[in-house]
């Protein structure tokens, strides 16, 4: 056999991509295990293995923490920013798996596939946060998005779920296409795909006002704004959040946010830092629109998932502030915020999922009197709401403070004021939820006598519980006062565990934020362009 070395293949640092391998490998294993016939394998082994894979990726990321290189000829960054992204996505993944235990969605989509898709999406996210090359960025994004389109639609028999999957697919594809076009233009303007080389080119050629470059940047802004649901590209968010199965919504809300924001940081504060005069005002405008639209929109919501969707739009706006200022402090602030956002959102979704299983819908009324029925859940949700609002002694406050500091420090004081005005509005709806938790009587049968309470003894025994939940094929929320399903014996324990852990983290990190803050300070290493 005569061998011919045609091209020099890139050197591959296996340790460096080990966390990616853990996720991909986990996906394959989970997919195979899911094929086994035993109930134990499907119902227990699959989630456990998925959690193991997520945990392994987190562990490997921490192991690789001190590295600071790029892999595969600059395609993938191996630095604290990427690793913290992997950790954030891993945590989001574990939370989503816990929420999926006993849920309808994995049962309908087959456990193996469901969890494998989650792992693949996480792997895509991990690529996305590490990408230092336009192509890798795009591949990571697609790998993250496509499984999510499917996951959103996994509750096959619920029209809302299907609709949300379709909407997410169409709008998401528009976003991806725009992003790709933008990448092409940036490549055309700079002649390079690598972030570092792009930054060099922008600085060397003064591409700040090159039409091609600006067009590309505009498209990239639009594309990424889609992914992180920044207004006015947010309109899909409430519909998709509400329609998708709650565990999937939780995963979308957290993992996607981590990935998209870190990608924002890398791309804008790294590769495109030289053109910050062009994108700075645009992003600042987007951030303030998102803050206002999200917070005002959330006021009128009665569904918790929709409320959180709007709030996530506003939160994306807050986080974007750290990108806009294009300083070291801004990068740290955004990363810190996005991590804490994962924790706070996970706590909220844990409680919502539990309440949804018990009452059959995700309206705020389902939470009434939770303080008496499930004090642990109520405390966790209270902490989550207060944290999202930014009340001191929760980690949300520290995060928000950091963002405000970054904004003031980066001469964007007006943006800080917009942020605070938004937060003021947000207090109304966050606290309304809290008030509901602790004061109202449980909205039991006595409160809604017309509700069609259907007892489902053991959800597993019935092929499709959603068919029961929606007797008319309508979403439960659309039936006024009706459609409440009391599922006795619904699995609540994993939710409780998640809620307690996340709730505790909100307080502990709020009182002792120092260690996490120190960790986050490392990430600025990953955007050397900021220090030129």
């Amino acid at each position, binding site marked *: 056999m005569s061998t011919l070395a045609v091209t020099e293949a890139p050197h591959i640092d296996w340790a460096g991509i080990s966390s990616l391998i853990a996720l991909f490998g986990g996906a394959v294993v989970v997919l195979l295990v899911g094929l086994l016939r035993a109930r134990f394998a499907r119902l227990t082994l699959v989630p456990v293995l998925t959690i193991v894979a997520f945990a392994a990726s987190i562990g490997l990321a921490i192991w690789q923490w001190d590295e600071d290189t790029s892999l595969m000829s600059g395609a993938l960054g191996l630095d604290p920013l990427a690793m913290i992204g992997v950790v954030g996505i891993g945590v989001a993944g574990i939370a989503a798996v816990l929420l999926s235990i006993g849920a309808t969605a994995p049962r309908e989509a087959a456990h193996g596939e469901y969890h494998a*898709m989650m792992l693949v999406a996480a792997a895509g996210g991990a690529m996305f946060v590490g990408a230092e090359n336009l192509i890798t960025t795009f591949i990571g994004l697609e790998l993250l998005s496509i499984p999510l*389109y499917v996951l959103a639609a996994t509750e096959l028999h619920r029209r809302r779920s299907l609709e949300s999957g379709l909407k997410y697919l169409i709008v998401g594809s528009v976003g991806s296409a725009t992003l790709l076009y933008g990448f092409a233009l940036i490549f055309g303007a700079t002649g390079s795909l690598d972030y570092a080389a792009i930054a060099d080119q922008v600085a060397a050629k003064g591409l700040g006002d090159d039409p091609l470059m600006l067009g590309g940047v505009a498209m990239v802004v639009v594309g990424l704004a889609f992914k992180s649901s920044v207004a006015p590209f947010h309109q899909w968010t409430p519909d998709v959040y509400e329609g998708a199965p709650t565990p999937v919504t939780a995963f979308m809300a957290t993992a996607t946010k981590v990935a998209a924001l870190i990608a924002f940081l890398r791309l804008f504060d790294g590769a495109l830092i030289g053109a910050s005069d062009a994108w700075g005002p645009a992003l600042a405008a987007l951030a303030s629109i998102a803050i206002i639209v999200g917070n005002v929109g*959330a006021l009128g919501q009665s569904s918790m998932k929709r409320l959180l969707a709007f709030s996530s739009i506003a939160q994306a706006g807050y986080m974007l502030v750290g990108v806009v200022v294009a300083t070291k402090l801004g990068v740290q602030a955004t990363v810190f915020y996005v991590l804490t956002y994962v924790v706070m959102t996970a706590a909220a979704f844990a409680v919502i999922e539990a309440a949804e299983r018990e009452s059959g819908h995700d309206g705020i009324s389902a939470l009434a009197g939770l303080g008496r029925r499930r004090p642990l859940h109520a405390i966790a949700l209270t902490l989550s709401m207060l944290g999202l609002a930014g009340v001191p002694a929760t980690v949300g406050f520290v995060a928000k403070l*950091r963002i405000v500091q970054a904004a003031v420090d980066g001469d964007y004081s007006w943006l800080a004021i917009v942020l605070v005005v938004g937060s003021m509005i947000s207090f109304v709806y966050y606290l309304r939820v809290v008030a509901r938790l602790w004061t109202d009587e449980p909205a039991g049968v006595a409160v809604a006598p017309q509700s069609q309470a259907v007892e489902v003894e053991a959800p597993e025994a019935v092929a499709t519980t959603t068919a029961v939940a929606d007797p008319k094929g309508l979403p439960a929320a659309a039936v006024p006062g009706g459609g409440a399903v009391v599922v006795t014996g619904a699995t609540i324990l994993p939710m409780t565990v998640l809620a307690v852990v996340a709730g505790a983290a909100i307080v502990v990190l709020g009182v002792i934020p120092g260690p996490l*803050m*120190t960790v986050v300070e490392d990430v600025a290493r990953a955007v050397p362009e900021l220090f030129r």
Partner: protein
Amino acid sequence: MIGVLVAHALAALIAPWLVGRIGLKAFPVLALVPAGAVVWAAANTSDVTAGRASESVHQWVPSLGMELAFRLDPLSLLMTFVAAGVGSLVLAYCGRYFAADEQGLGRFAAVLVAFAGAMIGLVLSDDLLLLYVFWELTTVLSFLLVGHNADRQGARRAAMDALIVTTFGGLAMLVGAVIVGEAAGTYRISEIVANPPGGTTVSIGVALLLVGALSKSALVPFHFWLPGAMAAPTPVSAYLHAAAMVKAGVFLVARLAPAFADLDVWRWSILVLGLTTLLLGALRALRQHDLKLLLAYGTVSQLGLLTVLVGQGSRDVLLAGLGLLLAHALYKSALFLTVGIIDHDTGTRDLRVLSGLGRTRRRLAVIAGLAAASMAGIPLFAGFAAKETAFDALLHGDTVDVLTLVVVLVGVALTAAYAWRFWWGAFATKDDVPDRRCTAPRTSFELAPALLAGGGLVLGVGFSAVDALLSRHADLIPSDEKPLHLAGWHGVGPALGLSVLALALGAVVVLVQRRLAGRPVPAEAPRRLVDARVAYVLLVRGTERLSVAAARATQSGSLPVYLMTILAVFGAAMTTALITGLPWNVELRTWDEPAQGAVGLLVVAGTILTLRARRRLKAVVLSGVVGYGVATLFALQGAPDLALTQFLVETVTLVVVVLVLRRLPSHFTGTVSSKRRRRVHILIGVAAGALMTMLTLVAAGAREAAPVSELFASASKLAGGNNIVNVTLVDLRAWDTMGEIAVLVVAATGVTSLLFLRRRSRAMPRLSDPAADSPVWATDPATSGSGPGADGRTGSAGRATQGGSAPVPGLLTVVQHAAGGSGTAKSAERWLVAENTLAPERRSILLEVVVRLIFHTVLVLSVYLLWAGHDLPGGGFAGGIVAGLAFTIRYLAGGRYELGEAAPVGAGLVIGLGLVIAVGTGLAGAILGDAVLQGGAWKPDIPLLGTLKLYSSTLFDIGVYLVVVGVVLDVLRSFGSEIDRQIDEERHGRTPTVERAPGSTR
């Protein structure tokens, strides 16, 4: 200092347990904690008075600039006395106020103690951010305290209002703190005050800090929350709304006044808002019938006065303000606690109902009298001494100060009037009102107000005792004149005259009001134009309504609307980008050869026709024309490899879309009805298209580097192939291909898993299926027209049905005629599977036979394309699609069983095999060569055929080929066979697709 706070935290933690254990007795025990703080403060008094402020600094979050910095200086000492002293008395009082079986008492006790701790922390903190933390803690804790009677709707709403308003202020303050802190380079308050930063930004920051302070201290326009918060239990009001929390704002003003009082924004906002509040609150207080509300408005008024005094910016006025702060804490909490006793013992707080209490509860009347006297400013009492100092200080000022003095004088007079109204209303014996019954007095209950009211007298007499301490803070503002001092008696002078004048005016007001009270009250009080509460409610409600309206307008759930918004914004962004980037370097060239122009016209025409098409099928076919046109352009441009790929992809897409279309209505539904909206759509669409065209032109004109394709050409030579597309795919950028096929597989898996409503393993239609006996694609007599027509066609089509046209499920069987065999699928000839599976009216023997004949040829062609791909047009991707097309035509000609028999393997298996081969090649490269996907070649000579060039990349290409074939199969199975099956089942009512729960309707 931290010890004091930790003690409070611990006390708060054990409070619920303690209350559960010993009931109400727990309150006096808990009161010992703030009492300890008082003792601690007292022990430090001499040091602080001597000017030795003690500090305690611990690192907390260094990167945020947050430190646990505490500092005990004169101001914080004063506030500690107020917060801890009143706190301990109120806690002790709670032990008598509440009933033992009160709900949630443990939580209440814990929160109250925690509040005391937070308040002490607030006044002690020397770090702006730390101060904000305590600030918000007091807000949240006060929310819990005000909302203690959570069963009452009013209490809840009041708590919510208070929370929203004060948090609003708090957040403004946070930004202010950050702005000031960043400007000063430190967050330490003592350093900022010693060295205040300047500039416009700092002015904004200070203004924001003031918003926080003023909202917390219930100044206009935030004043409405305080009366609302009177829904709280009375001890809470006494503590939070008289002594402690509302003083936080005054405290902050006093704290920062030495640094910022000369800023215009500071001076004017404090003066105007403070004085307005003073008058407004006092006037409102005069109109109240509820004793507690009367006190609440009185507090609002006094807070206005306090803010003016401590914020006015001269040393003497500040001193007077500090004195009044102390005096106010004493008398106002005493009065609140008195109201609590009255409420508790008589069951009412309405001064129109209360009568004769002065006789039955003489001791209580005396206590209240002492406190009210201090409030009114009667000589010898603390209130008098403080106010007189203020008069004196303002008299010596400039014009503004004198004007201020006039307003303050009126305010003080009104204060005296409502002080009388309070005492008279609570204790006087009214002629026309029957005496109110009252339970027997309890000494321990009256102890706390007695101590506080007595304190007012003691302080009034011995005011000079605290002068040294308070002067120490006031001296932070330099003063040229001879400094004033606080004292119980200043001697006879203009100030005393003013005090007497104020009391006299107050008496006049009382008399006038009594005269007015005789008159009949107008049936409907005239609506005030500006009522802050109404404005607040309107604001909140308006925002909410706006939110709902906005959500309804923008979140219609309609995808076209969403996409329109997106396109509009996108268009705006692009236009801006393009305009900013002027001038462009655009170079226009019509065509290289005329044929390109013709094809271009075809493409344009196809596009326009597609848009105008009403039928979905037509639109799809027309868009196919566009695609083929583009592929032709590729071919004309000299890229046969690209063109081939494009043609193939276009074909497969067309087939797949047509398969999907079967499940959709034949025409586009829901087209835009209104002309205007249609125009908007057209406008946005055209604009987006024009923008993209411009962008493309700009992009084409911007080329300055050599085309990368030349590089690829030479690189592909190096890789040993002439087909650039293929070499790029499988060699140069094999990693990307690897990723892409993974994405492809995931996508296919996703699509099919959405479509298959049953387990996939059973999804492959084979002849051995029991269901295979039912005809595929049969026209359904029930849906295809009216009775006679259907009957006629049944006959002419040569199909016999049993059971006629009635849609009887499960009875529809097919008896094949001359063309067919024995009539069951299992015994069908394998060569033409459709023979016994396809509905006869759907069969075309010619097509079936032709397809059957060319099938293998096409497959061979696909393998050839795969093999030749490295040098000639083709490659794994193209080959895979060709093979896929071969299966597609089999399916189209013979239905799902034909497909099942043509490819009796699972699509998943093919895909998996492909992936394994691709990955395996990569790994082999890693094992044999130095890296993943390392290329290699093997060129054996084969007789007859010539030299076979085998590259490792070819192996990789085989993987790609298999994946593509698998995906096409998968798509055919899902969009083709599975949808067929579902349609057939629905038409002929076989087993329901979805296993539904019993009892549910479909």
